[in-house]
């Protein structure tokens, strides 16, 4: 008798219990002034530690506000994450972004707020004026760092062993790579699956050979790309044809197209390649690997050198934080950003290679590689934006594909211009 009753009521009781304990999952969540959501792409453990500390301090000083982190992988964030997050119920209150096309897009769509009324007096003076951009007279982005998109990180033990010095010109660098290959080492570990790693590098090469103005023209609709415009990409072709990107047993020729940049990073950090081209944020990954005792050699860096007679250019982008106008607590949101950008936390970030936008950056960047990067930043006259933040995504995409195809042998520098023009004509049919 009891058994029959149990059997009948068990599912009902079970369901009721589930509802009571986990029913909040079914609720339609709502944003509140006391829960701020902070969307960012700091995925390295070392970076997370700093962010967590800042959040803890902020929550202590501003009860009852609590900050919830939404961590994105920067690749996803850059492609689909940054838009999708605004389709959610609880849009982020504070979010990270790269200056350029996407910030302008966000401002146009009403996803960013002018922070001027909420800024503490004198706060803006702490930042480098060149990094503070006024859009329509308002401040929408507070800059956190200036990222250098391409630096050549190298294994100092290997260089010492082969008697190699940091190259000063492009021609010297090519020599270095050839000598590395001759010594049966993988000169460069690059993963171009997502197209932007080497695409940003290609942008720098073109910046060095063309200058910022002419380069910018290439990405506009209606302009024609001449074959001579792309001569800077010859370095990419050089690397491919001379085996600088592959080594039997480590990376197959053409493998660069299938490997992600994360995997390439691991290849370098585990000592399987001599060099790795990636941006200034790599220092955080190096710190991580050292902390886990997985890095067994000293790492050095040098900027991608320009050829004889070429300009000294660099691909770089300012990153920062924005506030969502839909936030229920703009004052707290702005205050949190100011905390992250304060000297205290910026100096912690600086130890991870973050090139702070603060005026006093040089004084607290003590990590030698970080200082080196600041120097490089200060000395380079020509800055070009990476295509994915500087231009319309469709146009940027064409360029990324061109670089990717040159690296996998599908295009040569000679045929690349025609491909680019074809794609532009195609886009024009769509109205772009």
């Amino acid at each position: 008798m009891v058994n029959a009753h149990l059997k009948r009521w068990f599912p009902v009781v079970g369901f009721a219990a589930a509802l009571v304990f986990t029913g909040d999952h079914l609720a339609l969540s709502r944003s509140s002034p006391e829960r701020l959501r902070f969307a960012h792409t700091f995925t390295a453990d070392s970076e997370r530690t700093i962010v967590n500390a800042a959040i803890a301090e902020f929550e202590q000083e501003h009860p009852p506000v609590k900050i919830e982190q939404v961590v994105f992988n920067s690749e996803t964030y850059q492609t689909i994450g940054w838009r999708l997050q605004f389709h959610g119920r609880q849009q982020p209150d504070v979010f990270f972004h790269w200056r350029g096309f996407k910030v302008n897009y966000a401002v146009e769509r009403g996803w960013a707020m002018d922070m001027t009324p909420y800024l503490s007096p004198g706060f803006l003076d702490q930042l480098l004026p060149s990094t503070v951009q006024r859009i329509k007279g308002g401040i929408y982005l507070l800059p956190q760092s200036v990222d250098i998109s391409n630096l050549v990180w190298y294994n100092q033990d290997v260089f010492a062993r082969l008697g190699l010095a940091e190259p000063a010109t492009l021609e010297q660098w090519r020599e270095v790579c050839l000598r590395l290959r001759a010594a049966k080492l993988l000169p460069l570990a690059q993963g171009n699956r997502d197209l932007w790693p080497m695409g940003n590098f290609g942008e720098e090469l073109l910046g060095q050979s063309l200058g910022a103005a002419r380069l910018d023209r290439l990405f506009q609709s209606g302009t024609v790309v001449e074959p001579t415009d792309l001569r800077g990409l010859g370095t990419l072709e050089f690397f491919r044809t001379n085996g600088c990107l592959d080594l039997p047993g480590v990376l197959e020729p053409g493998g660069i197209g299938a490997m992600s940049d994360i995997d390439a990073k691991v290849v370098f950090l585990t000592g399987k390649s001599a060099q790795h081209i990636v941006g200034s944020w790599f220092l955080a990954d190096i710190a991580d690997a050292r902390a886990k005792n997985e890095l067994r050699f000293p790492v050095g860096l040098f900027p991608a050198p320009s050829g004889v007679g070429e300009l000294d250019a660099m691909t770089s982008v300012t990153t920062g934080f924005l506030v969502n106008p839909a936030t229920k607590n703009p004052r707290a949101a702005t205050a949190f950003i100011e905390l992250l950008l304060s000297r205290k936390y910026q100096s912690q970030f600086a130890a991870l290679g973050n090139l702070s936008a603060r005026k006093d950056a040089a004084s607290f960047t003590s990590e030698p590689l970080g200082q080196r990067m600041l120097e490089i930043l200060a000395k380079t006259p020509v800055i070009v934006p990476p295509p994915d933040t500087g231009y319309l995504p469709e146009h940027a995409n064409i360029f990324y594909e061109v670089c990717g195809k040159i690296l996998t042998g599908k295009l040569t520098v000679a045929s690349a211009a025609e491909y680019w023009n074809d794609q532009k004509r195609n886009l024009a049919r769509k109205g772009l």
Partner: protein
Amino acid sequence: MSKRGQMLFFVPSLLIFLVFVLLPTTQTLIDSFYPPRGAGREFVGGLYYRYAMTDPKFHQSLANNLIYLFLTLFFEVTVGMLLALGLEREGRLNSFLRVVFFSPSVLSLVVIGLVFGFMFKEGVGVWPAMLNEDRALVTVSAISGWAYCGFYMVIFLAGLAAIPEELIEAGRLDGAGPWQLFWKIKLPQLKEVIFVSLLICFTGAFKAFDLFWVLLPNQDHAAIVSTVLVNEFVKFDDPGYGSTLAVILTLMVLLTVAIIWAARRLWPGTVNAAVAAAKS
């Protein structure tokens, strides 16, 4: 049951189906005629369709879809049929083997994609270079095959079990060897099951998304229509073109179903004919 009662019973399903499937589908059709950018929404007619006709990316993705379709036909359906034929007999070992072969089908394609992605990671994985440009499609099809051959095996097993024993006996009495038994007697009997398998396999090839998104993101050479569609919609913020691709994809699926349906009607062979052939 009263007429009203029947109506009441029917309405909830119809409502949900209408609101969440039919309505959006028509909306997709409408959206394909309007551009997204800018405030003004003007009818642009067949602009996106004309663009699709000339867009090399779309052509590439369509070609990839068709290649994938034929590859999965082999890796999933054919392998599944072979497995079914091999494990037809009853027995403890065979039962166990059947459970094993079907198990990957219950796993999420995301998990499968990530695990295989690991094994095939360029430079760091176990079998590197399997996801390189020239091998990517074949590799992904093989992974699909690994995941779903058990599914088709189960379907074919059910089909084989439904074949009347007398037919087989009659064939054996006439001295037919296993190969002839398969060709002349089993295969015609499996006609229905084969058509269902083709239907599922072909529509599945067009619907495929998960594996490609997880294993080969951003790879243009390995793009299929679904991934191009999602990218257009989310990465490039162009629901107009995305909707156009969706419409074209749907039409292809419907066309495929229609073709298979028609082929089923036209294919000769009924139960009686098989029996007659076996007796003669």
